[in-house]
């Protein structure tokens, strides 16, 4: 369970281009289910996701995970927690060019020093599950949009995180692929993982597996609906 209390994030504090991305947001996210953060660009939903996912520290306020305080951890230990708890899928996929699919999937686990064979097997199992076992050795530049998306998903899951965060997962896909991706995410949610998505795509907001919809505007939460 992730709890945010009076969390604010200010960029370029004290300078002329100061920007308040989030203003005193309080939120409780339960385990499990699929939550969608909806709002126009600039509403702060990406910033909220980075804070929830321990990618950044709030300027003020407290964030706790399962009752343990996260917001005052220095970067090194924040990253340790993040590695094991959160998996990210980015809008641009962000795969490393020049490496194969398999290597890309194994990358997040490198700093953990897991034994090579075990890691390779885990990565291959994930790729098989997402239907990519024929492409493990191909370079990521040669993948189609859908394949790249699924590779990114596999990469996010390599450390078996409890929470999966996807930023605009359907932005670069057509409706057929979007449906596929949402189904996959729904599957993961059904297995017990918490899935958090940010999107302004109405198909996502009205998809079947979604259990909660949070609306953001100008750094404030303006709506919170159960679906």
């Amino acid at each position: 369970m992730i709890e945010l209390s009076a969390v604010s994030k200010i960029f370029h504090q004290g300078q002329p281009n100061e920007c308040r991305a989030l203003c005193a947001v309080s939120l409780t996210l339960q385990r499990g289910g699929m939550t969608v953060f909806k709002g126009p660009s600039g509403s702060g939903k990406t910033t909220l996701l980075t804070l929830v996912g321990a990618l950044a520290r709030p300027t003020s306020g407290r964030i706790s995970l399962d009752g343990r305080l996260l917001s005052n951890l220095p970067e090194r230990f924040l990253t340790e927690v993040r590695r094991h708890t959160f998996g990210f899928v980015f809008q641009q996929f962000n795969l490393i060019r020049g490496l194969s699919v398999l290597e890309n999937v194994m990358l997040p686990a490198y700093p953990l020093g897991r034994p090579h064979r075990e890691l390779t097997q885990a990565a291959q199992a994930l790729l098989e599950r997402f239907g990519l076992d024929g492409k493990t050795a191909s370079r990521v530049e040669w993948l189609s949009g859908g394949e790249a998306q699924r590779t990114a998903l596999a990469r996010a899951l390599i450390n078996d995180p409890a929470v999966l965060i996807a930023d605009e997962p359907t932005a670069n896909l057509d409706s057929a692929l979007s449906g596929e991706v949402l189904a996959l995410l729904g599957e993961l949610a059904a297995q017990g993982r918490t899935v958090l998505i940010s999107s302004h795509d109405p198909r996502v907001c009205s998809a079947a597996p979604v259990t909660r919809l949070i609306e953001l505007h100008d750094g404030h939460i303006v709506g919170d609906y159960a679906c």
Partner: protein
Amino acid sequence: MLITPALVALHLIALCVSGALLLASGFAWTLLRHWDIASGSELQIRLERRTYLVSTLLGFVLGAELLSLLLFVHSAESLSSQFVGAMCATGVLNINAFGFPTLLLKIALFFLAALWLLLNRVDQQGHDYPLVRVKYALLLAIMPLALLELLLQSAYFLGLKPEVITSCCGSLFSAEGQGAAAELAGWPVRPALLAFYGMAGLLLGSGAALWRWPALGALFAAISGLTFVVAIAAIIAFLSLYVYENPNRHCPFCLLKAGYDYVGYALYLPLFAATAAGLGAGLLAPCRHIASLRRVMPGEMRWLTGVALAGFGAFYVLATALILRSNLILLG
């Protein structure tokens, strides 16, 4: 003025060390004033990021400082053919008034650098940077010493004039002379041997006690330091006599020569490493009360104690072997 590659390298290292420490000190000052682990402000985040750089830089630079002690002694030794009257490093160091002070300062910096590196290592294992203030305060203390070392070393090297006739170790380390070196050389053999092996016993005892009760860290550190002093004194007082098989030659530097199979290095390296580890154990013992380090401290203490005992052990074993193997009989 003498220009050799070794001296150029030593100058370079000293410059790098001083430069890096100066930079780091500026940062240390800012950190000591503004560090607040609980805040998420941009200043705090910037400070945390900076510590990565400074810690890594200092790691390298202080490591180089450790090597420069070795290089300094080695160079002094190899330059002895250059100076009339010098047969070993003693003569070279005696050329002007800055030689021995530079050596002593380098030794002090060696231990301080080793301690800092140990502190850094432990600090990085705590999730809230528990020792960061101690670390950077220590840095502010080391910095002036490093600058002083740069000055003294430069003065020493600039004053190395080959035409000056220097005295050899025979006159400096002889029992009839004056000064600390002569006092040590004049220490009678039997009490020296007793003190030497007595310290070994104390070391073993306190080391074993430390393994069981980490609270005794300070005691172990004190005994380690004392053992270091006694060991050096013992080398001058009687061990060198056994190695040279000459009841009048007390020089601690001639041991480093090729003619004696470089046994000096085999003696000094473990001794210095062990003393550093022992002092480190003492310094770090209070850290086991820190919440974020509670998990790692016992392991660290054990490791340090192990290294210290192993190093001292190697030293004592070698010393005893040298005494037994020697053809010189000092005790009827």
